[in-house]
């Protein structure tokens, strides 16, 4: 099968959906003639023109707010947040407007918006260009949150988002754009929300990881295999809706869980997933659940400091060892 980069897979999803549905319109800063600062919209402006691929002023609140009105009046806007950190500026429009319009009107309207935002550190971009804010949105009823890890998943999930009648937050780890390559079929396919993917089968411990951390977890699992430890790696792919069943079943099988996320640990995604597993697989857990997340500090600039804050293979392996050592005697 042909291989695409993460960025190419996203671009192809946008391209196919722009061609399929003329109600889809892209908005963002430098996404038009320039093709986006991460090149994810390259070529789309030439193909669909300035009416469909629209350069906006630096007004995150303004164009995300417009997206709410555009969605309520029958189109499907796709606003892009260049660095996911800047989503703070559009927070009211996402959390108080987009997420609630359907509910507050008693079901009178649907609000189909796909907000694409980047996430992730590791590029020495400093504390205001490196954060991962997906947990905030998973907290809000009325929103859906997607955190793809592979080109295949990114394409299939983005196409689903672009057909979903709800506001969807689609988080793309910027380190993956041009570094991660993977097979993507030529034929059309969609990936439903709420279905986790078992990225690697194993029997001794379950590692749940999201977005780029799936690759870190897979690398850790590879090393653990050399020690004779068989780790299962599960990628939830979407946080809302969340496939609780697959997580619980895996932990029932392995008896241990390590949860990995590039968002902050405190009150974050790892806490919620740990609670889901603790409730659903309590009798099967042989040791306390371990969490590996970003340190609760602003993301530093200097590389050794920055890498210390972000989960890496070593931290995952140590967490797995803690789980296996903590195992109650049979």
């Amino acid at each position, binding site marked *: 099968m042909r291989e695409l980069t993460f960025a190419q897979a996203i671009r192809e999803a946008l391209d196919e959906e722009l061609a399929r549905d003329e109600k889809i319109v892209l908005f963002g800063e430098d996404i038009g003639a320039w093709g986006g600062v991460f090149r994810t919209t390259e070529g789309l402006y030439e193909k669909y023109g300035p009416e469909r691929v629209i350069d906006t002023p630096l007004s995150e609140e303004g*164009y995300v707010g*417009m997206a709410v009105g555009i969605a*309520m009046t029958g189109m499907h806007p796709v606003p892009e947040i260049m660095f996911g950190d800047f989503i703070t500026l559009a927070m009211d429009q996402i959390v108080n*407007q987009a997420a609630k319009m359907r509910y*507050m*009107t*008693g079901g009178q309207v649907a609000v189909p918006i796909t907000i694409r935002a980047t996430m992730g550190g590791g590029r020495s971009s400093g504390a205001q260009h490196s954060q991962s804010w997906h947990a905030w949105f998973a907290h809000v009823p009325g929103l859906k949150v997607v955190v793809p890890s592979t080109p295949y998943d990114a394409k299939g999930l983005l196409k689903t988002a672009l057909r979903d009648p709800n506001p969807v937050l689609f988080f793309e780890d910027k380190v993956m754009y041009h570094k991660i390559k993977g097979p993507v079929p030529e034929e059309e396919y969609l990936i439903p929300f709420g279905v986790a993917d078992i990225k690697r089968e194993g029997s001794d411990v379950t590692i749940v990881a999201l977005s780029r951390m799936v690759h870190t977890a897979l690398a850790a699992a590879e090393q653990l295999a050399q020690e004779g430890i068989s780790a299962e790696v599960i990628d939830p792919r979407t946080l809302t809706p969340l496939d609780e069943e697959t997580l619980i079943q895996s932990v029932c099988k392995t008896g241990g869980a390590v949860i990995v996320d590039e968002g902050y640990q405190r009150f974050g995604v790892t806490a919620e997933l740990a609670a889901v597993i603790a409730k659903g697989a309590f009798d099967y857990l042989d040791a306390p659940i371990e969490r590996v997340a970003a340190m609760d500090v602003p993301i530093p600039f200097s590389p050794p400091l920055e890498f210390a804050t972000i989960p890496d293979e070593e931290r995952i392996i140590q967490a797995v060892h803690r789980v296996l050592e903590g195992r109650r005697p049979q």
Partner: protein
Amino acid sequence: MSDFKTLPVEPNLLIEMYRRMLTIRFFEEAIFDVYRKGWMPGLAHLSDGQEATPVGVCMALRPDDTITSTHRGHGHIIAKGGQVEPMMAEVMGKVTGYCRGKGGEMHIADVSLGILGANGIVGGGLGIATGSAFTAKREGKGRVSVAFFGDGAVNQGLWYETANIAVLWKLPLIYVCENNQYTEFTYWKNLTAGEGLVARAQAMGMPGIEVDGNDVVAVYQAARQLVEAARRGEGPATLVCHTIRYGGHHVGDPGTAYRTKEEMDEWRKKDSIQRCERLLVESGIFSPQDIETTRSEIEARIQNAVQKARQDPFPPVEEVSEHVYA
């Protein structure tokens, strides 16, 4: 005595304006009563005194034009054709309300009438209105979008962001600032630098007009001019209507601590409904008897709406998790 041939608007239009203004006034008075009696939960933000602004603007609109409203939105909704029965039920949290009791006093919407929702966030509807104007321009059917907001929202960043985009993209959008002089409890000039919103609009390259917001005909004529320009593709415009709310910020506030009696007496002399009644009678469209009949008819309709809404059921609790997702 003037006669209706010299009237600036069609007699039937003036009658309809009068009816809608009166409906707003009586609706707000009924809500005051309902609130005091403890028949509705939450707060009540009334707009009695401000009727001429929403009615003058909405009479210049087509049914397919859209509006967004504010926390003080009852008047905008009635002016755009909203019905008092489902409004009253919504305010009381009943399942028969416009939003099945999930919106409430500050969030009434009737999307089929182009009412894209009142908003509890001051200025929060500006994005929605601009988005609707974007879709309108795409559709190319001459539809326009109106954003109602108060003097307080003028200082929200969203106005600047959307106004800039609306001018750049020539969107058919009318920003209607209903300046009732007070942002909650503070005089607007203590919060807004410079000459006000029209000056700011002009700085963005957008035309703006200021009118007496208690004169329904003046509001209508100004709105018409701006709406037609927007329909022709000339882009957005700003309309500032100066008016007053008779009551406090909400029913629990008497509105007397930060405003003087003299000031309010002056405003009462400019009452929009009395002025409209004088115009109707002096131009021979209505007799004093017609005025009385109209008043009792509208009053009765609203009282019926109150009685009906009181008897209507609350939503079944199973509905609590419906409508979170489409």
